[in-house]
């Protein structure tokens, strides 16, 4: 049974690219170390072997030019996938992402199409320190013209990546570094997970937990812990962060009457603020408590594992946050 096949998050990404490239000759990939080496995380492994150096291009270390390569080739009819090794490096390419890719269509009166996918690796948890660990999705979601996905499992990874490639807009696919090795069922055929559609990871009646990327998985562990305490969590993984599936979250809020958003990015100005605001606008009368947010403290990501482990939310801190929304005390406090 092909549905039972298990694949890693990393290989799910790889398969999405590989199968898409087989089906569409206009797709090519470009980035640092992705060709002969297969990418520093191995996500592009073997693609140059199959498709050749014409379609899987090793580029110079030039983030602006890498994204520019994507913008210019997309606007002239190709379907590029360009890789920025670490999400932190979007900052180096910000002009091409924010001022060019996201805006050309609009500035040109709708006459341009930009089927560009930017792939990158986000997230902390590897002692990679402050310049190689960030989750900067809120910055990208703030830019009209961009779409942003941040999958939490291999199935979504493959389906979302295929959707990103097929989408005629600039999309950013964020792979979480700590999830690359996790495995799960991934169908062999070329399927899509639609952009802008949240996934109900766990239905529940007491509280809605909204979380993506690695935080979705940590929230599921937290939900298990809390199930033992008689708390029934509904966990929603938006999967796509822009466009955001507000409707699914609001519907859940109206049912559970309590909402908490969990993200790895710093809390201040994070997406949690936007989601909390939208829930309050659309479900205020249903809420029994303020919408809560869990995120990293307002500091750069620390290097020392002794600090980093307290910096990134985990199942334990998420569980105590959820208890807080329900007005319950956490053990030992």
């Amino acid at each position: 049974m092909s549905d039972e096949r298990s694949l890693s998050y990393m290989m799910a990404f790889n398969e999405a690219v590989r199968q898409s490239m087989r089906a569409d000759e206009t797709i090519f990939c470009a980035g640092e170390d992705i060709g002969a080496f297969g990418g520093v995380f191995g996500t592009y492994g073997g693609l140059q072997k199959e498709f050749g150096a014409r379609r899987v291009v090793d580029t110079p270390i030039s983030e602006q030019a890498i994204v520019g390569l994507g913008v210019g080739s997309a606007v002239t009819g190709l379907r590029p996938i360009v890789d920025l090794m670490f999400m932190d490096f979007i900052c180096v390419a910000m002009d091409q992402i924010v001022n060019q890719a996201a805006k050309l269509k609009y500035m040109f009166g709708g006459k341009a199409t930009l089927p560009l996918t930017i792939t990158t690796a986000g997230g902390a948890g590897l002692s990679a320190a402050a310049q190689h660990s960030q989750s900067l999705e809120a910055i990208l979601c703030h830019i009209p013209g961009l779409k942003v996905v941040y999958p939490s499992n291999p199935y979504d990874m493959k389906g979302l990546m295929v959707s990103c490639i097929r989408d005629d807009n600039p999309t950013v696919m964020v792979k979480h570094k700590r999830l690359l090795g996790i495995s799960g069922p991934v169908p062999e055929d070329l399927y899509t997970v639609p952009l802008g559609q949240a996934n109900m990871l766990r239905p529940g009646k007491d509280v809605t937990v909204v979380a993506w990327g690695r935080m979705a998985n940590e929230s599921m562990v937290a939900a298990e812990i809390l199930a033992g305490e008689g708390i029934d969590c509904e966990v929603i993984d938006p999967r796509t962060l822009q466009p955001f599936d507000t409707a699914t979250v609001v519907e859940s809020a109206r049912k559970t009457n309590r909402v908490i958003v969990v993200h790895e990015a710093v809390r201040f100005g994070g997406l949690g603020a936007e989601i909390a605001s939208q829930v309050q606008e659309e479900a205020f009368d249903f809420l029994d408590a303020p919408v809560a947010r869990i995120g990293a403290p307002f500091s750069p990501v620390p290097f020392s594992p002794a600090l980093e482990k307290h910096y990134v939310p985990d199942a334990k801190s998420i569980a105590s946050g959820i208890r807080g929304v329900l007005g319950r005390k956490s053990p030992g406090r």
Partner: protein
Amino acid sequence: MEPNPDVLRDLHRRMVRIRLFEEAAGKLAEAAKLPGFLHLYVGEEAVAAGVCVNLTDADSITSTHRGHGHLVAKGGQFRPMMAELMAKSTGYCNGKGGSMHISSLELGMLGANGIVGAGSPIAVGAAFTHKYRDDGNVAVAFFGDGATNIGAFHEAANMACALKLPIVFACENNEYGEFTRRDHTMAITDIVDRAQGYGMPGVIVDGMDAVAVYEAAAEAIAFARAGKGPTLIEAKTYRFYNHHGVQNLGLKYRPDSEVEVWKQRDPIFTFEAQLEDMGVLTVDRREALWAELRADIADAITFAEDSPYPEQDQILEDVYTRMEVAR
């Protein structure tokens, strides 16, 4: 490559079209009829014309904040150009781009750009498409002397050479970036020195001489079409007006005498004298051409003035390309 009389006339026509468009835009700006910034190309016409005569609509160019000349040289029509400058819905960008983002993808003009230096990486992408498709087309990146001080230019130049792409980097060295002299911001005299660092040929050309630009561009473009890689062309030129707007003399940052010296070398008037000497252009034909194009400009202004502004409901249009989503 000596241009034949048809090419000479074509160069001339393109330059006059640019001049008339820009002079008209300047007048409209003075009359407060154009919202936003206006960076005029007057004085530099030989560069855009000399390069673009060698291109077809299928070739791609990227442009700068000073982009009207590039679009005109690439075949841009006055009506949608004027309408765009006036922010009307009939403009090339439906009034959403304006002077600084004017573009026409059908003509291979991938946009003026408000970010100095940002066009070059995009031209690299277009050149990549041409090579990928093996369609024999090329990309030309136009940019100023000041733009060669920004990282994006260097990344683009290096990547284009590393990937051996069919591209020409066309630098319009007008000796100023905004209000600062070029020699205050770089320690080299010739921009072309930068070519060597990336492994591409570099050529200096008189940017006031349309034929000289044409010949250098013809060679560089043929080189690119033949799969031999990028070239950097440095055209030494000058803008007759201020960085933006229509003042030309009495500016604090450059002496009037300098402007006068360059104006003696007006790329259109000197060229017309040559053409008349060669018997390629008669006084009658010259006058008829200016009259014809002036009428076109007048028509475009009327068209633009009569055109509607975009409706408010256009604000949210074209942020994204709509995708059919299977729920």
